């Protein structure tokens, strides 16, 4: 039964991805300006234009172009960037680690912050502390990551400049790395000087991305925890003489955490989507920053590649979350 569920879920994922490909292709095709005309100097002849159109396959019919393009994408050929004349796949993959590291760091911060809020809120339930946490969560939720990023720049970049608010790492340290996973590499090689420099750069953008998600985690987990605290087995644990902290952390948390886990999965894709503008704001050299440059330069093959990669990432995260949920939830495991 589980295998059947898995297969049908993978089938829907493939349909979604095909839909994504159709839409990305359709959007790029309705572009009014002729991309070829913009690439050539003013004195170009008809023959030059035709040659370049043939090079990019623009002389064929639209469905033909779609299937040629899709065939290439499936084999990892995302076309050639117009501005840099390099393969799109290579360019995109060179930036992917930076965006992934930022997203994962933000996720870790969100879970830590949100979890702490929920635990404190539950421990201090029905007091002023809980009220204050609710108000703070409400604020954090109403304001998106872009604005939190600007607020953090003002607070920790200008008023009290303790963090670097631009870039991923100090430029003079870049030659020290052999992979593009800077943060991961610095931990594995135990180079804590590099790690410190990275964190000093990444903490502010990661925090901006994390604040809204932390609020959501804080709210939902606190609600589930408070509901669990009324259940019989928790009362039993209390009558056995366990302390309140023990009851929350050891007994209630395990049963209350499942809805939050599912929610984190869905919200993680929104967080990854937020990196586009946050990277721009903090001049962080990731995929999102590259996407905005590509739009400004009207480098359509590059934008196409970045959008497809993000869509692939989103669908895979959703797939993994669904499967994890099926594995973790005992009711679905035997369904």
């Amino acid at each position, binding site marked *: 039964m589980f295998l059947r569920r898995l297969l049908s879920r993978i089938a*829907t994922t493939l*349909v*979604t*991805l095909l*839909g*994504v490909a159709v*839409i*990305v292709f359709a*959007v*790029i095709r*309705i*572009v*009014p300006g002729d991309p070829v005309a913009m690439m050539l100097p003013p004195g170009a002849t008809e023959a030059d234009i035709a040659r370049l159109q043939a090079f990019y396959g623009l002389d064929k019919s639209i469905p033909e172009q779609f299937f040629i393009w899709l065939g290439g994408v499936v084999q990892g050929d995302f076309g050639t960037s117009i501005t840099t004349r390099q393969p799109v796949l290579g360019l995109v993959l060179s930036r992917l680690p930076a965006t992934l590291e930022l997203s994962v760091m933000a996720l870790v911060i969100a879970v830590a912050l949100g979890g702490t809020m929920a635990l404190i809120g539950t421990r*201090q*339930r*029905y*007091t*002023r*502390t*809980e*009220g204050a946490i*609710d*108000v703070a969560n*409400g*604020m954090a*939720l*109403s*304001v*998106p990551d*872009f*604005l939190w990023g*600007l*607020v953090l*720049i*003002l607070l920790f*970049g*200008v008023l009290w400049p303790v963090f670097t608010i631009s870039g991923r790492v100090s430029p003079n340290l870049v030659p020290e790395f052999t992979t593009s996973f800077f943060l991961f590499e610095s931990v594995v090689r135990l180079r804590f000087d590099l790690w410190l420099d990275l964190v000093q750069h990444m903490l502010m953008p990661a925090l901006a991305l994390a604040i809204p998600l932390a609020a959501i985690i804080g709210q939902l987990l606190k609600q589930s925890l408070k509901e669990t605290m009324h259940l019989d087995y928790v009362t039993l644990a209390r009558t056995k003489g366990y302390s309140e902290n023990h009851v929350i952390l050891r007994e209630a948390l395990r049963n209350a955490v499942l809805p939050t886990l599912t929610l984190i999965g869905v919200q993680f*894709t929104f967080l*990854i*989507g*937020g990196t*586009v*503008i946050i990277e*721009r*704001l903090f001049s962080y050299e990731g995929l*999102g920053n590259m*996407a*905005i440059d590509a*739009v*400004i330069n*009207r480098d*359509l093959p590059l*934008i196409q590649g*970045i*959008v497809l990669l*993000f*869509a692939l990432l*989103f*669908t895979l995260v*959703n797939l993994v979350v669904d499967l994890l949920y099926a594995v973790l939830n005992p009711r679905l495991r035997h369904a």
Partner: protein
Amino acid sequence: MLDGRSLVKRTAGLRLWLSAGWIGALVIGAVFAPWIAPQDPLMQDLFTSRLPPFWMDGAEPGYWLGTDSLGRDVLSRILYGGRVALVVALIAGTATALIGATLGLIAGYFRGWADMVISRLVDIWMAFPPVLFAILLIAVMGTGLTSVVVAIIVIDWTRFARVVRAEAMAQGAMDYVASAQVAGRGRMSTLLTEILPNVLPTIAVLLTLEMGIAVIVEAILSFVNLSVSTDDPTWGGMIAEGRLSIHQAWWVLVFPLVALFLTVLSFSQLGEGLKDRFDPVLN
């Protein structure tokens, strides 16, 4: 023992009034900007560049919130920028609500193949990062107010479609709908006279929230210089300029940021307030 929730509840009314007050002031400021604004928002004057706000040394009368590096008055630009923000909120918000809610009603009430197509589309849309999708659309359509509005409609219709579909399905299963059918009412007439009025509060809540989102999307697009023409003052554009001169003239960033922050917060508080009052379903 003091009930912790009472702090949230007690301040709810106050927060609602403050939000409505800010939006009201903003509307007045935007509508009457040509008469209220102390300066021409576009006028550059290098002799008055980077003047500080009125309470600091070196301020000049008439430039209450200071000037940017080209000598343009920050307060006047915020008032005119409010026009762009509110126009986008109103037009894009309403159009998104109309299109998204219509598709949601069709999918949720008529079900069948229409529901299948619309739900599949929603699934596909969920695979796109919204900001990236918006800048992709702008890259293709070119900049300008129409492009911004179209981009917001295209990326956000699913917010309405998803919720309204679920709501219409729930209402469609209720007894009063069945009795309307038994009484011989047509499907379309049941949809418009029975289902729609019951879904309307939900749509109103979503519309208020969507206006805040539209303001933020416009600000993000103008921040990366992909919104209306670069001559028109926008909050996002001012923030982008202020980000560059943040160590020399913080006020160029801070004042439009405060305006944007309060506007987004107010729309969201109004939406939450409406939800508490009229809509037991969303709660």
